[in-house]
């Protein structure tokens, strides 16, 4: 986990479910084949209806057409981000596109767990609703040690909730590394 996660914001609304994060028709590519796995980055957040993409502007894709990575490193969302399917392809797709962190009001359990367990991205919880206070394209800087989100475009700073127990797993790089370090499975 980087000490400072900095990059452009991509803002979406409430209840962005896993079908919107990576539509089911794209769950067929290999996650380990370097040529195929890039398609998860291309289609990340492609299921969000056009009016909800890149709020408040809309019609702004997360990954530009024919590209495999996104210019946006930090997704800002409302409540219940990642609800729906158990597909781990969802946090994987965001990470593959280049997303390092999501800042949401709340998460669905399985998405949150997958994001942490696989070491894909840092799922921060905001202490207030941010989707109307941050715009897609704003430059954000997250201090992962202190737990703050600075919007360098507007000069505002927001507090994030502490990561708690999952910080150790994220620092280890996922549940397997964590379990090995803790002696729970053989190194």
């Amino acid at each position, binding site marked *: 986990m980087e000490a400072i996660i900095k990059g452009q914001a991509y803002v979406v609304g409430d209840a962005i479910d896993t079908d919107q994060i990576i539509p089911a028709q794209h769950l067929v590519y290999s996650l380990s084949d370097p040529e195929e796995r890039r398609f998860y980055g291309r289609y990340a957040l492609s299921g969000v209806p056009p009016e909800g993409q890149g709020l408040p502007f809309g019609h702004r894709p997360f990954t530009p057409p024919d590209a495999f990575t996104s210019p946006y490193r930090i997704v800002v969302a409302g409540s219940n981000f990642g609800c729906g399917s158990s597909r*781990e392809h969802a946090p994987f797709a965001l990470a593959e596109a280049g997303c390092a962190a999501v800042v949401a009001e709340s998460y669905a359990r399985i998405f949150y767990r997958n994001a942490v367990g696989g070491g894909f991205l840092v799922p921060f919880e905001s202490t207030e609703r941010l989707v109307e206070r941050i715009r897609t394209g704003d430059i954000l800087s997250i201090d992962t040690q202190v737990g703050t989100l600075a919007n360098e475009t507007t000069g505002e700073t927001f507090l994030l909730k502490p990561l708690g127990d999952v910080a150790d797993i994220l620092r280890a790089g996922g549940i397997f590394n964590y379990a090995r370090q803790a002696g729970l499975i053989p190194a």
Partner: protein
Amino acid sequence: MTITEKILARHAGRDRVAPGDNIWVEVDVLMTHDVCGPPTIEIFKREFGEHARVWDREKVVIIPDHYIFTKNHHANRNVEILRAFAAEQDLPHYYDVGTERYKGVCHMALAEEGFNRPGSLLVGTDSHTCTSGAFGMFSTGIGNTDAALVMGTGKLWLKVPETMKFVFEGSLPPYLMAKDLILTVIGDIGCDGATYRALEFDGEAVYDLPVHERMTLTNMAIEAGGKSGIIAPDEKIFEYVRARTDAPFEPVYGDPDARYHTFRVYDVTTMEPVVAKPHSPDNRAAVSEVAGTRLDRAYIGSCTGGKLEDFEAAARILKGEEVVIDTFIVPATTHIARQLHTTTLDGVSLYEIFERAGCQIGKASCAACLGGPVDTFGRTHGSEVVISTTNRNFPGRMGSKQASVYLASPLTVAASALTGVITDPRTVLV
């Protein structure tokens, strides 16, 4: 302790656990399918080595069901990966496509094949794995990384959830089904109303339900964000399980002084048929409120809507009638597909009733419940308005993000298929 806490304590080797405790549990069954199985296997091999063996070959169940009848070569490759892994590991519980063993939707298949056993702990790489809780067991959906860890060690790290209890009192009227009960609950508490919690169902109306209808309640716990759904087992469950497996099981019940996060009581005699409007399972309305809404398509299938009881309900309405919109019938499993031919209503098989009504009948699988490859049976491609017995209606779920999906009971879907508009089943039930 609640039934959930007691099952988790037993699988953690402890006398007691409390909500919020993080514990390592021993898993009784790990289920995976064709979407999440291949990446799980990749992670398993990456972490445990190319020649690693699964922790217990009797406890790994692999059921391809999602993208089965498609020309998509990536989807077909997924099944080939499962097939090769099952052969390499000599797994006895693999249900291969194109063979006599092929089953269909994993959650129903787990029940039919005797893997759901009271008091046990089952995890699966599908969010609707919570379905198995209808058997008085703990079951929950996990991701590929967690599943790979279970595959190698038999262990899972999890947090003990608080329990929300929902009691349905009264005798269920003939126009209501389990889908109406659970959509009512989800509408009340919202799609994140049960996040990090277990949902427990109780009451006369629940215990009146046949086993498969109970699975509709627990299946949709995840649509409220729940970690699991559960119903304490009764004699009906024991009979069902004993008819399918010789494996021993030990039922668990909650303590009288168990603590619940929520305790909510419903009187089913005052409830109405309901739908979930687009685009969220918690966007509830009474059918009477949205009656007359124009539809393009009706769909009866999936783990919550493709069971024999669902088709019996639909057949009560469709018998001797003709649908006026495209209506898709998808049995959840091959066993249910056969039952469509052998189960009759007034001497006519359910299959014939649907065929004469002008329905299109598909092969056993998940089909269009979750969209999938473009050639998937019943999948949406445009701005169709669909009424469906499936369990999720987020944008794009059935394929096209321009489509609008209403969720409803098989009775409501069948009644609507006859008129082409959302129709209250009470207006056509005799």
